[in-house]
């Protein structure tokens, strides 16, 4: 990157980098409820948003928070909230509402150890399926997960772009380690940041339908207050937004809500590879905080005489099955380190049937270490 294109270098906490990313992406509305370990994102929003003419509001609970951002989004604002697993549990009903009314919104989940109140200050990766299937009914969802503070900034911007592009809730799935750690990041100059906004309707008011079908599968948007009348409707609706319980109509609606994301998988699925060669024998697949011990193992691999590669998933949902298949084609074994009892591993087993998949799993609230991963690799080799 030429020097002129580089922006500021900042030493930031992961949670703060998310907040900076949100504002850089154009977000101007935050509604939330305090919860560890995500609270710095709210502190940052409360301090920074009024400075740029935006809104911070602390609602009475997480149900109110998600409701308020959905309302604000339909009025045209770029919106976000931040919470942890218990907060997502409360938000789940209205995450479905956001899918249904097609309200762009970014939901940041800084994971902590569950279930229930669990360990409020300890990291976990136990919400992998919660964010995918927490709300009821068939729906699709987008989730991105950073493993560095730089990615906290970059992927938050991507999350807003995807939310706006596909008119859908998008998760940024963090964890206590990534949220609370400090690293130096480079914040690009504003003109170098790619920003995507929802596509607005330009038709005559009498021709406007808030849920009109088009080839893109994403309806054109008219905010509340527009001369084109918007009917946001969480119940079964026709293209005009009025109730429609016809089975064919509803079947078509639910399929469209899924297809608009699933058919754009190639564009949405972001990832990184480290040391993935033609002769790689062991592939580690990881996301979030578990990427970091895996990187340490890659660095030490030669010392153990092992050919190890790492596939870092930055997009978790829609699930990047094609990318996983591509990088695991020639390997002899897959290792999946995660701070859960094997949620990511379970999803991988749906696609990989002929290669042994070993988990490195911890749920006590402590990070996975490189030694934990090496131990599992070695144990397998002795079999």
């Amino acid at each position, binding site marked *: 990157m030429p020097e002129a294109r580089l922006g500021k270098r900042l030493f930031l906490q992961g949670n703060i980098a998310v907040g900076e990313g949100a504002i850089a992406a154009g977000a101007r*509305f935050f*509604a939330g409820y305090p919860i560890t370990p995500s609270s710095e994102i709210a502190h940052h929003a409360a*301090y920074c948003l*009024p*400075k740029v*003419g935006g*809104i911070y*509001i602390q*609602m*009475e*609970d997480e*149900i*109110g*928070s998600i*409701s*308020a*951002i*959905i*309302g*604000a*989004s*339909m*009025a*045209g*604002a770029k*919106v976000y909230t931040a919470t942890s697993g218990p907060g997502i549990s409360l938000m789940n*009903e*209205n995450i479905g*509402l956001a899918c249904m*009314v097609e309200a762009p919104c970014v939901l940041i989940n800084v994971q902590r150890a569950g279930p229930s109140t669990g360990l409020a200050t300890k990291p976990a990766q136990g919400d992998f399926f919660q964010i995918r299937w927490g709300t009821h009914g068939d729906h699709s969802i987008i989730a991105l997960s950073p493993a560095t503070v730089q990615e906290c900034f970059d992927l938050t911007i991507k999350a807003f772009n995807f939310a706006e592009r596909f008119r859908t809730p998008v998760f940024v799935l963090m964890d206590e380690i990534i949220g609370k750690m400090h690293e130096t990041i480079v914040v690009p100059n504003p003109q170098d940041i790619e920003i995507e906004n929802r596509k607005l309707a330009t038709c005559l008011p009498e021709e406007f339908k808030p849920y009109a079908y088009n080839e893109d599968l994403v309806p054109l948007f008219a*905010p*509340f*207050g*527009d*001369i084109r*009348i*918007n*009917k*946001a*409707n*969480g*119940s079964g609706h026709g293209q005009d*937004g*009025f*109730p429609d319980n016809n089975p064919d109509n509803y079947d078509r609606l639910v399929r469209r809500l899924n297809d608009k994301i699933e058919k754009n998988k190639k564009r949405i699925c972001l990832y990184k590879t480290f040391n993935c060669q033609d002769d790689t024998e062991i592939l580690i697949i990881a996301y979030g905080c578990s990427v970091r011990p895996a990187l340490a193992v890659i660095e030490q691999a030669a010392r153990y005489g092992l050919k190890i590669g790492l596939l870092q998933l930055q997009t978790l949902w829609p699930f990047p099955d094609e990318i996983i298949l591509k990088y695991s084609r020639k390997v002899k074994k897959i290792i999946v380190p995660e701070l859960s009892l094997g949620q990511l591993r379970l999803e991988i087993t749906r696609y990989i049937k002929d290669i042994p998949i070993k988990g490195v799993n911890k749920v006590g609230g402590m990070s996975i270490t490189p030694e934990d991963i090496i131990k599992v690799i070695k144990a397998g080799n002795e079999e």
Partner: protein
Amino acid sequence: MKYTGKKFIKKDSLPFFWCAGCGNGIILACLVRAMEENNFTQENTVIVTGIGCWGKADDYLNTHTFHGTHGRALAIATGIKLAKPSLEVIVLVGDGDGATIGGNHLIHAARRNMDITVIMSNNLNYGMTGGQYSGTTPYGSITSTSRYGHGEDEFNISELVKAAGAAYVAKETIANPLRLQKFISRALKKENGFRFVEAMSICPTHYGKENRLGKAAEMIEGLKKNSLKIDLIKDRRIDELTAKIIVGEYIDREVDGYIKRYREIQKKAQNKK
């Protein structure tokens, strides 16, 4: 009648799906007339509903609408109003939606003095789901989930919203639509703060039938008979007020409203280096 409010009604959605004798049609008529009286427009009005019989009111309206989830209309409306303060935001909730599942949002929106208007249709039970008891069902009532008489006391919801800090609170029954419309119109006219109008309604299908209150006409007579104007209650003994519907303006006070307060916060933030 000077104002018809017809321009806000989507005619091809009529007739209403509500049961014969339901009070919702009367409340909706009062609302659209009051909107016309206050020069509201289709483009500049957002009507937010929750779930329940009254939550279906948006089906008949051609303003911007948001038909959300059960109990959450007030929180959704809070987001809409904050994001675009130039909009007129009206929230339609029933007693189940607003006073029961959404009770927390109601008291906090009132405390915060969000600059929105709430019209609550109170028919003393959950109509849509089959006449179960709600937070406003009176003690002793028979409902589909209180077969031996209801064991809980009800909220006086207008008193609750007033106590929470709302700028304007009024209550009237559907038996007196002119006064109901007047109160709604005053609520809409007020520029700042949280405005709440409780419309005492009837549910002949469930509550009326279960409690042998007769058909709609008799129930409306009952509302009239039991109504007592708020300025007259001072002279009454407590036992005379039991089972009375205290109608009138509970409070009408000048407040900043949250939008104005937040604009001041934005100014402070922008002046700080």
